[in-house]
Every structure is written in C-alpha cells, then in structure tokens.
C-alpha cells in the first residue's frame, strides 16, 4: 500500500460521468427503442463481467487446487478482478426483470410449441429464478471466502487459511463448473430454446477461463508497469502466457468441435442456430471470432520470446478479451436478426464500462498489492522457470 500513488479523483470523476451519461442513454433505450434491446445489452454486459469475475475466481482456486507457487505473488490481481462477481450478481438479479421481455419460453405462445412444452419442467420462470439465486449464493460465498480470507491473511499472517483454501478448492471447482453450465444453458442457450448443444457449457467455460487469464495478464502487466509488483518479472507472467496459449487452443478446439458436429449431422433444429450466425450479415463477425480468440493470440504466444514480452502479452490478452466480448455478442444478439450496433449499444457500453472500472478501481485499493501474509509468497518470488 505504501508504494501506491494516491488514487486520482479525475479518473474517478470521468468514470462517474461515463456512468451517468450511460445511464441516461440506457433509460432512453428502454423507453424509446424497446425493452428487449435494453435487456439484451444488459445481459451481454452482465455475462461479460460475470465470466471475467468467475474466471479469475477460478484462477485463484486453481492455484490452491494444484498447489502452484509461481502465481502467488500475482494472486491479488485475480482476487481483485473477482470483485466483478458481486457486481455482476447484482446485475444478474436485476436482469431477472428482463427475462419475460427476452426469453421466448416465458411467453404464452410457448404453451403451443411441443418442444417448449417438453422442456418446461426445466425452462419455467420460478425454477429459473431459483437456479439463478442458488448459483449467485454459491458464488458470493466462495468469493467472500477466498477474497476476504486472503485480505485478512495480510494482517494476521495466519497460515491455516492457506490450508483451508486448499481444502475448499475441489468443491469450488465442482460448483464452478455446474453453475457456469447452468448460466450457459439458462441465460444464453435458452434465448433460442429450440436449439440445444451438449457442448455449450464447456464452450462458455473455455471462453470464461481464457478471458479470465487475459484479464489477469492485463492487470499484472499494469501493476508491474506502475512498479507496484516489485520482484515479479517475466518468469512469473511467462506462465500466464503458457496457460493462455494452451487455452486458446482449447477454446478453438471446443468451438470448432461444436460447430463441426452440428454441421456434419445437419439436423434442421440444430443447424439453423449456426446458419443465422455464420451466414448473411453475421458472417464477418463469425470470421472475426476465430481471428481474435485463436489465431492472433496463438501466433503471438507460441514462441518463448512472446510470452516474456509485456507488449506482445498485452496485445494477445486484449485480443482475447475483445474476442470474448464479441463472442457473447455473437451468441446473444442474433435474436434480433441482423447485427445491431448503434447508439443504444454505445450508451449501454458507457454505463457498464464505467461501473466495471469503478468497481475494479475500488478493489485495486483494497489490501496490499501482493498477498503479504501468504506463507508461500517467498517461494513464489524466488520461483524459477
């Protein structure tokens, strides 16, 4: 904390102005353009924040699970980015108001659609809300345990927390995978409820994990440039590059496997979902996805030189993050037909980017920049490749 520059009020005021401006724009979207457009944007940003936050919480738990040392000095960064979890839970609970405007299975016509009738034991409003609430509760409990516990360890230096954190990591991973699959099926896939893909939960996980790594990389590089992470160098974030490389390949593999199987089988009710998304006006975006999400980061990170250069790492991470956002946009927005991108999207982006950065800035000021109470910190700092 001692080496932190005092938080600049100018940036905070700019962000506040962004939020206010965005909120005004959002209100105009709701009343002038339509509730469905408003809620689609809302869900897009909520899921973007949720996946970033959960991805980073997963990275924190993963370190505990496998007993990694290299990431300990950088762990405060994913813990801080995980502060997007409570924010997005709040946004998700508000988004329940928008469910009837957006999800076809809530409409009265659904009673005449045999597919939706058959799916109604799962896709009904009360159960949907219960699932969202249970997931949110699990996330907030794990978030408080991992992030608050780690902050508390800064001052009391209690090594027993490290043991408890390791013991709770396996249940968290199970809860994480179940809840993320529920998010994928409930909040994205059921926008077009006739469609179904077994792989979809894994697909969202791949995007979540890779964008979590990308956000963590950007955060680490930002703090290193500010001189707030002394003794943390390329040998530490090199591993982020390695993980990033492995999981861009994983994302591409899962994404392509899902597409190829559906393309091969050519079943009308499955293939129509992809037909909307890769032909016609959505085609450029569908082509952009593998580029941002796979080809750019893959070729930047495959050499050992790229993984130790902050500039290369930053470009790769940005490409992945933008790719993840475009991915969510590409999953959600085809419900409106052709791609919609105009002032409603821009003003909603203003609102949410402002909110997100305000939350991250608040989290950045909390606790020391390194987990100083962690008994593994020294081992992590002297860690060699």
């Amino acid at each position: 904390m001692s080496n932190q520059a005092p938080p600049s009020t100018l940036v905070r005021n700019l962000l506040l102005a962004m939020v206010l401006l965005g909120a005004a724009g959002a209100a105009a979207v709701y009343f002038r353009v339509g509730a469905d457009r408003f809620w689609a944007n809302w869900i897009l940003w909520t899921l973007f924040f949720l996946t970033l936050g959960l991805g980073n919480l997963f990275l924190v738990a993963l370190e505990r699970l496998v007993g990694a040392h290299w990431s300990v000095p950088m762990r405060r960064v994913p813990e801080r980015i995980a502060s997007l979890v409570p924010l997005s839970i709040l946004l998700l609970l508000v988004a329940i108001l928008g469910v009837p405007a957006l999800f076809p299975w809530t409409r009265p016509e659904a009673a005449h659609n045999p597919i939706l009738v058959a799916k109604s034991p799962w896709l009904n409003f009360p159960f949907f809300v219960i699932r969202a609430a249970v997931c949110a509760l699990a996330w907030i409990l794990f978030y408080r345990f991992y992030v608050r516990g780690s902050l508390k360890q800064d001052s009391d230096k209690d090594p027993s927390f490290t043991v408890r954190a390791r013991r709770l990591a396996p249940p968290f991973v199970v809860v994480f995978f179940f809840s993320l699959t529920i998010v994928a099926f409930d909040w994205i896939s059921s926008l077009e409820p006739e469609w179904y893909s077994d792989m979809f939960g894994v697909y969202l996980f791949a995007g979540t994990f890779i964008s979590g790594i990308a956000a963590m990389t950007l955060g680490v590089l930002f703090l290193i440039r500010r001189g707030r992470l002394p003794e943390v160098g390329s040998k530490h974030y090199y591993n982020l590059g390695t993980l990033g490389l492995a999981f861009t390949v994983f994302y591409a593999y899962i994404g392509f496997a899902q597409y190829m199987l559906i393309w091969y089988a050519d079943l009308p009710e499955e293939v129509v979902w992809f037909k909307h998304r890769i032909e016609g006006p959505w085609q450029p975006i569908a082509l952009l996805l593998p580029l941002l999400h796979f080809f750019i980061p893959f070729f930047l990170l495959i050499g050992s030189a790229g993984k130790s250069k902050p500039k290369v790492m930053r470009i790769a991470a940005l490409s992945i993050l933008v790719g993840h956002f475009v991915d969510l946009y590409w999953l959600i927005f085809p419900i409106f037909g052709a791609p919609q991108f105009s002032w409603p999207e821009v003003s909603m982006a203003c609102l949410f980017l402002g909110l997100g950065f305000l939350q991250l800035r608040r989290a950045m000021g909390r606790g020391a920049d390194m987990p100083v109470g962690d008994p593994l910190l020294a081992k992590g700092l002297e860690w060699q490749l």
Partner: protein
Amino acid sequence: MGSDAQAGTFAVVGLFSKPDAIIAAANTIRPQKLGRLEAYSPYPVHGLDHAIGLGKSRLGALVMGMGVAGALLALLFEWWTSAVDYKLVTGGKPLFSWQAFVPVMFEVTVLFATFTAGLAMLFVFNKLPFFGHPILHSELIKGITRDKLALSIESTSAAFDLDKARTALVEAGADSVEVVPFPVWQSPLSLAGLLRTIGAIFAACVVAGLGIYGAEKMVPIVPPMFHIHDQPKLNAFRESSFFADGKGMRPAVAGTVARGHLPPDFKTPEEAGKILANPLQLTLRVADRGRKVFNDHCAVCHGAVGDGVALLSRAYGGKPANLLASSAREQPDGYLYGVIVLGKNAMSSYAADLDDADRWSAVHYVRILQRAQNAKDEDLR
C-alpha cells in the same frame, strides 16, 4: 605442458556443486574466448544456456514451419482426393468441405511438428548418432550423473590453450579440474560386428517363425470372428419360421416397378418407331456419350463404324445388321430405340445394361455414323 598433450586433449573440465556457481563461472570465462564452452548437468539449470553462450534455438522455427507445411499438405491432399480426383458427394455436403478436413489437417500438423521436433533435435541439433562421448571416459562423470555440474572448455577452437583453460577454471572457483583426453576409438562398424548383427537378426526370424508355426499346429485355434456370421437376424437366404412362406427373403409386392425401370409401352420395334421420338437434343456431350455407349456395347458386333463387320461377326460367322444400309437409315429413331430395348433376331435386349439416356445417345450416334458414311456434297462445305 607440451603441444602433444594439448593435441590429445578433448576438453578441460571443471566441476561445480551449485547452479549459481557454474553460471557465474561461465559468465567470467565466456568473455576470455578460451574455446567452445559446454556444460553438463544432472538437471536443467535455468539461465545456463545463456551463460555458456548458446544462441536462440532454431528448433522452434523449424517445428512451426513443418507444422504449417503439414497443415497445408493435408489440405492439398484432401482437396485433391475429394474435390478433384474422386468426386464423391457425401451427406449432401459440397465436395470441398473444409469443416470435414480440419481434423485431418490438425492431426497431420501435429504429426509433422512432433516428428520434426524429435528427429531434428536428435539428429540435427544434437548430432546423433554419436558413439561414446569423451566425457563418459572421464573421472568426473560419476559426479555429473549424481549432483555435480561440470563446465568444459573444448579444444576445438584454435585459441584453445590447455594451461590457460585450467587456470581460468580454477580461478572461476571450480571444485576440481580434470583434463579429458580423446579416448582411443574402436571403429563401431567392423565386418565381424556386421556379420554378427545379420546373423542375430536371421536367428531371431527363424526362432520366431518356427515358434509361430509350432503354436499354430499344436494349439487349436478358434476360427476368427466365430460369432459374426451366426447372428440371430434374418438373412435373405435363411429359413424363417416367422413368415408364412418359410423364407427369410421378402420378395417385392407383385407389380412393383423399380424407379427408372418402367416397362416399355410397345411390343415391337416397329411400334416403338411409330410412337417414340428422340427426347435428347443432339449436343457434343450427348454425341460423346453415344460414342462411348456404342463403342462399349454395340461395336463388338456392328463394327466401329456400324457397317456390321466386326471381330465377333468374323469369328463366328454371324451377320449383324449393317446400320449404314438404307434399311436402317430409313427407320425412325424410335425403331432403333425399340431394337435396343427388345432385341432383334440373335441380338438380345440391352435394356438391363443401358439406361434411357444411354439408349437415346446411342441412337444419335448411329445417326452420326450413317451421315458420316453417306456424306452429301453440302456436308463437306
């Protein structure tokens, strides 16, 4: 130390017990340019490659190049086999379906990349095969294979000086220094060794062959796939107690007509000539097809130009019709079609061999032959 001793020296080797010590020593000795530096270690030491002056490995670029080559080669091969050489529509997909090609491209990429990595690493960059490294004959090797690290100054460069190298290693803090000479080589390839190897391979083949032969003879072997032809399902030629007629085969319902095999609605070629006209327009493709059909099916008897003189008629004395005669020329197209379908005299029906378009193409071709052999003046203009 004389120059003789120096000439027989492979390297001067210093032994260290800490990774930091060997890196520091390498960093002080490297700028003195005493000879090529090499390091031996029982475990990987990060930074040592840089300290002894190893450049960036070219293996990565090679692997990347070969991986990309593998992907492109697979794509080329898949495109050529399925879209050029053997066009087979599968599942209603386009001939060039890149989606289906990607898994094979991926596999070939991995195959090329891993083989390049393994083989280039062993045979290009590590210069294998290399029988018996001189360091293996030294005293230090016992330490190197346990917990010690060794830094060696090799004698390959002209600047190598035995005494200077030894002093430099001692000054850099080596626990002990040893001069490793070139061992006395025994040629790995001798005639006796070669013969022994061939003999051993031959003996192994004989033993294995006899062993398998004996096992086959003595141990009763279950017929392979014993159960696969004995399935309880109903075969076309199997008895069945399920159906009333006791046969496994279900014949088609009486009066069934296969698609494209409607029976002709004429009884004689003459009748066909009255009611049928050639539905095909004469184009170059139709003419080509007609020529192929005619040459494949008709020319053996009717002759390549249709004059009724051909291999078969010469051999057996038969008299196939001369298609160029006026009797054939004056018949309508439908008549020729009718003959193909019903047969005439010794000629049997070709309905089973030729589909509708084949028959009409052949009729067109017969007309072409007739005109070619009876060309009028205006045809030549």
